């Protein structure tokens, strides 16, 4: 039976159901126990499964993320949470040199069924060290799957897929979509979620709004901004198709290319930094596949500046509905 759940509850429900199904699944991270995760993604798990399987860790990220590799090598399926993606620097070696490469380097001897979860996104003045997205940084490294849900249905299904996947999956949740009391979330992110376990395949994008004049591509929060932009544009007679990528790795090229072939115009809405990232990858994919566009594509991304604190400054650089509308008007 479906009922509406906020994203944070959908994620914790997915983890709980997988922990019940498979005793090898366990969770580690800072404040994931009694607190239930700073963004609620592990709420209720400690009460259900106890401190052996739901382990609060010291602030020793290199150690507990590296430990996920060791546990995985012995058949466990760890889920590790590191609060904000901005904090990953200290544990990068374990992630990009070890977890990402172990399967390949070992010639397939070592599977790494690890889920690394973290919060992304800004918009509430938490400034340069607590507001980044950075998924492009991780998508760049071979061996890591990257998923980024935009609503609670996908959040649950993608989490179950991530846990069951034999590869390391980085699972990014946008703070502004979690449905927490203290951080407003668009109502569209809180949707009906079936009670029983189900999967959303990793690597399948979704056309969340059909249109014929332009393709707007986004993930997480920018999917909603894209839909709102499309609704406004419709009033002016412009028909925009909106794609929620849901996964950056693997990237669902077919859905992307089919849409761009149909519309002939492309706008990418990305809350990560503009250069060397997701938005460039999307354009490269389109160009490499020989699709000719009616107009040069436009990227609505974070300009290459650290996230400023002051509300007026952050609003100026954050991708939003208005910026997407302007971008669409440039390509039409």
């Amino acid at each position, binding site marked *: 039976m479906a009922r509406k759940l906020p994203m944070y509850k959908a994620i914790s429900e997915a983890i709980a159901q997988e922990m019940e199904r498979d005793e090898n699944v366990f969770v580690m991270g800072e404040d994931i126990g009694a607190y239930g995760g700073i963004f609620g993604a592990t709420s209720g798990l400690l009460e259900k499964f106890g401190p052996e399987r739901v382990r609060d860790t010291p602030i020793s990220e290199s150690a507990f993320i590296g430990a996920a590799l060791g546990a995985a090598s012995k058949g466990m399926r760890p889920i590790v949470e590191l609060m904000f993606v901005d904090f990953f620097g200290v544990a990068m070696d374990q992630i990009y040199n070890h977890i990402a490469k172990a399967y390949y380097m070992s010639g397939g001897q070592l599977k790494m069924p690890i889920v690394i979860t973290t919060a992304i996104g800004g918009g509430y003045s938490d400034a340069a*060290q607590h507001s980044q997205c950075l998924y492009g940084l991780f998508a760049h490294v071979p061996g890591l799957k990257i998923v980024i849900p935009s609503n609670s249905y996908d959040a649950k299904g993608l989490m179950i897929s991530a846990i069951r996947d034999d590869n390391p999956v980085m699972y990014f949740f946008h703070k502004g979509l979690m449905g927490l009391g*203290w951080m407003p979330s668009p109502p569209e992110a809180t949707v009906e979620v079936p009670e029983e376990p189900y999967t959303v395949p990793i690597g399948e994008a979704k056309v969340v709004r059909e249109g014929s004049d332009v393709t707007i591509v986004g993930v997480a929060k920018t999917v909603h901004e894209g839909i709102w932009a499309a609704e406004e544009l419709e009033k002016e007679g412009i028909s925009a198709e909106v794609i929620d990528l849901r996964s950056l790795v693997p990237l669902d090229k077919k859905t992307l290319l089919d849409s761009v072939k149909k519309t002939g115009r492309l706008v990418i809405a990305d809350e990560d930094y503009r250069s060397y990232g997701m938005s460039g990858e999307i354009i490269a994919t389109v160009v490499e596949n020989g699709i000719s566009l009616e107009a040069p594509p436009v990227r609505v991304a974070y300009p290459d500046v650290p996230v400023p604190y002051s509300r007026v400054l952050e609003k100026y650089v954050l991708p939003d509905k208005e910026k997407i509308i302007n971008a669409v008007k440039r390509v039409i």
Partner: protein
Amino acid sequence: MEKVEEIPKETLLEIYKVMHKIRTYEETLAKWYYEGKTPRFDISAGPIPGELHLSSGQESAAVGVCLHLKPEDAVVGTHRAHHFAIAKGVDLKKMTAEIFGKATGLSGGKGGHMHLFDAYQNFSCSGIVGASFPQAVGVGIAAKLKGEDYVAVAVGGDGAANQGTFHEALNLAAIWKLPVIFVIEDNSWAISVPKDKSTAVSKNSERAAAYGIPGVSVDGTDVIAVYEVAKEAVERARRGEGPSLIEIKVYRLRGHFEGDPQHYRPKEDFELAKQKDPLLNFEKLLLEKGIATEEELNKIKEENVKEVQEAIDFAVNSPYPEPEEALKGVFAGGE
């Protein structure tokens, strides 16, 4: 506080003044923080958006250490850094304007509450746990290479002492005999994780032994004890005798951040925090020992209230930055 009689009265009153100023500032800021965030708490709303980590209850650590420092000495703080900023002498008006996101702030609104930088006072801080330790080591290297006698103070919480950076930095400072004072502010909580569940030894000061440097644990509810311990560490650093580790046991009067429901925290811990209030303890001591009269203290309090109010007024009345400023200042030497 047995040494209190050996310290000049003016120093004692200065200690009181700065501690009280910090408390007044933090409690005033808290009121402003909740403006626009009630009845429904929305972290992005109001004149002070974003997270706010206040230091009420931990003033003694900042004051006890910083009163031995000169402007050229460096303090590298944490995400909870207002008390160290104030004790280090960071301009209160500019700091407040920064927290309000105004153009007149320390960084023109780009840094905010967790990223206060004051080059004149050699103060910096960040939102990344454990980042302070190696950075202070670098200041120590600079002092040594330049032949100067300034020192660096690295501040971290008890949670931060479990970061690799803490151990690496202690070792570096020790092998190179650098003028660094490592301060662990132990408030027993790494957000919701209690120290006894995160740290294998009961006192972080014991970890100094692993690096062959002095390690002292001191009761932060007694500001004079902190002051004395810090004095020795700073003097030792200035004499070129190398780093020290000071663990200061404090109590967090408020949540990890404002709005933190603290459902993980036992009632007794709140009670204990109230009993261990370093400001009230010190005030009581000054009066009981006849070091200061209530009148004298009231005068200090009034001055602090006035200064804090002026800082708030300055911040409130300052303009926001021009939005286009967001795109400037990524690189030195041009835009």
